[in-house]
């Protein structure tokens, strides 16, 4: 029964191989290969929700010597997000790439990306995390350069190099951890790690590496070009999932492994960077002239929010208050994941129909592509943090935590960020609603529009109304530092 945990990883991997072998059938294999892990993830989630965290000691070796896969609330939520988003994007991509030359490779890489994501979310071993991180980075890079344009290649290369730097930095942290504590198993580490130079240096190194990957403010510069120039389905998962993977790791490290090591000052530093990212990213998004670039900058800003949680979390003692904040953080990340992927998919539709994505020339879009415009609006709602989206709840709880911890400083940042987000989203909508010749004669609902709108609906409605599940799941932790 425990082998359940391997399926979210094994299934996409298997199907990836199949897709590699039968490129002609890759469309079908790709969609199926995305759907099957979704089922597995659902099963896992159900199990976790019903009976607590799951653990799979691979090869039957005790964790430590061997590698353990673990699923707890946090990873299940991440898995759910990734499985759902990839499912929707896969359906979309089966239309988007219907006639692309390299769709065979796309599907293989796509499935490998899913493998990497799921492996990362399930991994319970620090070094294995490094491997999954690398795998994720490489698949993402390759997918990002599928577009084939010069910009996309350049961006992908930069992404790759920085990703390598990031994972190396992570790896040296892992080395120090192994040096200090003699194990790589995260559960064991969660118990073992105590505050001290080893923990501090290792944590800062690992965090530094992950911050590059998650594009926190001064390290964000690779993100906008990479996300903006990739093909739409790829941009969607890059913005929605890939950066979140690094964030997920940071959360794991900070809150569960290095709980008690993290100092308030460090958290504040990260928070400040997050705050700058919020303001700067939103501002840049407001200035952006292209739709996808705007979305990419918006990702920078949204990630900033997530990092602003750090000082709050650090200031809270373990317990309900912290779980509340953590749940809010996760909810915000989830909402952003769904919303941003929907946004990118919609942008892709517009780009395919119009041949460009210059915001100023989008007049008439709302008329010719009503569903897509609707998707953008819904996703925008979630990005701004308006109800009934999940991000509204998350921001509410964030503010609440802010008041509880007395960290008023962040208040103006949230306010400014929200307003700026409103500004850029509605600037876009304003252009879309404006009269114009539109982007094409099509008035019908395309098959690729449905996944986009579904994603947006998940972000705005599902996560808004069933957000309590997040708070139910988050305290289920497989690691000592968690809600034990």
């Amino acid at each position, binding site marked *: 029964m425990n082998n359940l945990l391997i399926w979210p990883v094994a299934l996409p991997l298997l199907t990836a191989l199949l897709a590699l072998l039968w490129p002609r059938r890759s469309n079908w294999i790709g969609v199926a290969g995305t759907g099957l892990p979704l089922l597995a993830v659902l099963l896992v989630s159900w199990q976790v929700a019903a009976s607590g965290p799951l653990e799979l000691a691979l090869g039957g070796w005790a964790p430590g010597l061997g590698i353990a896969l673990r699923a707890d609330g946090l990873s299940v939520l991440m898995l759910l997000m990734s499985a759902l988003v990839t499912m929707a994007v896969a359906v979309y991509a089966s239309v988007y790439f219907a006639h692309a030359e390299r769709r065979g490779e796309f599907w293989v890489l796509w499935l490998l990306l899913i493998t990497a994501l799921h492996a990362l979310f399930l991994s319970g071993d620090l070094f294995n995390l490094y491997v999954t991180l690398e795998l994720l980075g490489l698949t993402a890079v390759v997918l990002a350069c599928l577009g084939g344009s010069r910009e996309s290649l350049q961006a992908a290369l930069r992404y790759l190099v920085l990703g390598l730097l990031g994972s190396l930095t992570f790896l040296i942290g892992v080395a120090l951890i192994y040096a200090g504590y003699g194990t790589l198993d995260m559960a064991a580490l969660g118990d073992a790690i105590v505050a001290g130079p080893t923990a501090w240096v290792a944590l800062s190194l690992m965090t530094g590496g992950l911050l590059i990957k998650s594009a926190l403010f001064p390290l964000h510069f690779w993100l906008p070009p990479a996300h903006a120039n990739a093909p739409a389905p790829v941009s969607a998962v890059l913005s929605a999932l890939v950066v979140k993977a690094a964030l997920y790791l940071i959360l794991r490290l900070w809150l569960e492994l290095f709980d008690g090591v993290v100092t308030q000052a460090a958290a504040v530093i990260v928070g400040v960077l997050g705050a700058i990212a919020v303001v700067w990213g939103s501002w840049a998004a407001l200035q952006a002239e292209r739709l996808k670039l705007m979305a990419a900058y918006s990702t920078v800003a949204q990630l900033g929010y997530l990092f602003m949680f750090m000082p709050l979390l650090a200031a809270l003692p373990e317990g*309900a208050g912290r*779980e*509340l904040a953590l*749940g*809010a953080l996760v*909810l915000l990340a989830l909402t952003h994941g769904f919303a941003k992927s929907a946004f990118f998919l919609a942008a892709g539709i517009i780009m395919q129909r119009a041949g460009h994505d210059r915001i100023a020339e989008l007049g008439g879009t*709302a*008329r010719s592509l*009503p569903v897509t415009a*609707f998707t953008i609006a819904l996703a925008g*709602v979630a990005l*701004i943090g*308006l*109800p*009934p989206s999940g991000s*509204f*709840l998350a*921001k*509410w*709880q964030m*503010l*609440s935590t*802010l*008041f*509880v911890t007395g960290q008023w400083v962040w*208040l103006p940042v949230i*306010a400014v960020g*929200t*307003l700026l987000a*409103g*500004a850029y989203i*509605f600037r876009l*909508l*304003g252009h879309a*609603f*404006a*009269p114009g010749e539109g982007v094409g004669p099509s008035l019908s609902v395309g098959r690729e529009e449905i996944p986009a709108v579904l994603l947006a609906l998940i972000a705005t409605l599902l996560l*808004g*109304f069933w*957000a*309590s599940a*997040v*708070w139910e799941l988050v305290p289920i932790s497989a690691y000592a530092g968690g809600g034990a």
Partner: protein
Amino acid sequence: MMTMSVWLPVGILLSSFIPGVLIFFQPEERHRLRTLLNLLGALVKLLLVGVLIWGVFHEQVFETRWFLAPGLEFVLHADALSVLFVSLSTLLWLVTTIYAIGYLEQTPHRSRFFGFFSLCVTATVGLALAGNLFTFVVFYELLTLATYPLIAHKGSPEALRGARIYLRYTLFGGLLLMIGAVWLHTLTGGVEFVQGGVLDQFAELDRDLLRWIFLLLILGLGVKAALVPLHGWLPQAMVAPAPVSALLHAVAVVKAGAFGIVRVIYDVYGVEFAAELGVLSLLGAVAAITIIYGSVKALSQDHLKKRLAYSTVSQVSYIVLGAAILGPLATIGGLVHLVHQGVMKITLFFAAGNYAEALGIHRVSEMDGVGRRMPGTSLAFSIGALGMIGIPPVAGFISKWYLGLGAVEAGAAVWVLPVLIASSLLNAAYFLPILYRAWFKSPATPWPADKTAGCARELPDPLLWPPVTTAALALLIGLFAAAPYSPLEWAELIAGREYRQ
């Protein structure tokens, strides 16, 4: 019975939400189906609200709870105050829908329009039924979202500009409201709307803190209620189509702000506690300034809808003023004005829309002699205008009467009465010339765009009857103010419950 009490609030929400969503996906040509959906939704809602009124009157509890997040519950709860607002919006929604169907005939994007229209009403009803501050904030923001496309509906640069300004204000306001709400929420661990307020039970809370929160909440709500430094969006938003303006000014947006202020004062802070904090006098002063300022501004507007918009700025603050004066009578005045202003203002906007639609008249200076040409519309307009001035027996008089009584009772007559009187005079000063032009002047030149020439009647039915109906309503609820189930009686009921403690 138990289930009905849970499902009724949800049903009221859904009765406009579902048609709204369905309409979105209707092709533009399916005119009949859309109309059917619209009217069906409105009628079902009316029916449900009828049941609700009956139930609340007999002190039944209607409540729906949905757990959203730790400490956050989505609560729909019907108390007398909700019922007042719900019934207003439901009734006027029906009328406005009919009007909009007539008004938007042969224009593009009707599906989108009616979709958002229904969502707008859903949000408003949700606001009315919100059972705690959190739910209120949710619907408050939703309302912003649902109205934005309506204001921008025409897609012209002015419309987009108006919508942008609207958003700028309301998002900012929503944010402030949210910050205040979260703060309060954090301090008290959940703010349910309870008649008489909840905050006086938290004796240990810092008074200054509560004052700041009050300021935040009022700033947030004041944007929609168009209190004076925050009113800038309202005159800009008049570029929207007439049914939207009607909805905006009479039912949805502006009212949402005013309703929120009432909620905060009565059901969150508790009016006595708020008075103890000393925040009410400040609010009253702001309301007074707004009343005068709006009227003075309205004087100099030649654009009819702009004049009406400034008039709204002024009139809505009556509600705030009523809420800010301690005492049941002022409360009654403010609350009843919530309804009265809605009915009267919607009449005015319908009429303004009719003038623009039939004759292309947008300015006051073009209205010479229009009364003879469009007697029904003009009569409705006149009744609305007279009501705004406070001429008995139109509804506005009742509001002013109770406001004045409340002011005298609370010993605030020194500043409230001059404000009321000055405002009435100013109202007269900007409304009566319109009536004068309409009725007593003869048309000098041909009207800018005369579409009704050669028509058998002055206007098609869906355009003519809504203003006439609402005008009649304005007259009737004023004339039969003391009758059972009248808005006044509800307001008295509410005030009675608020001050029971």
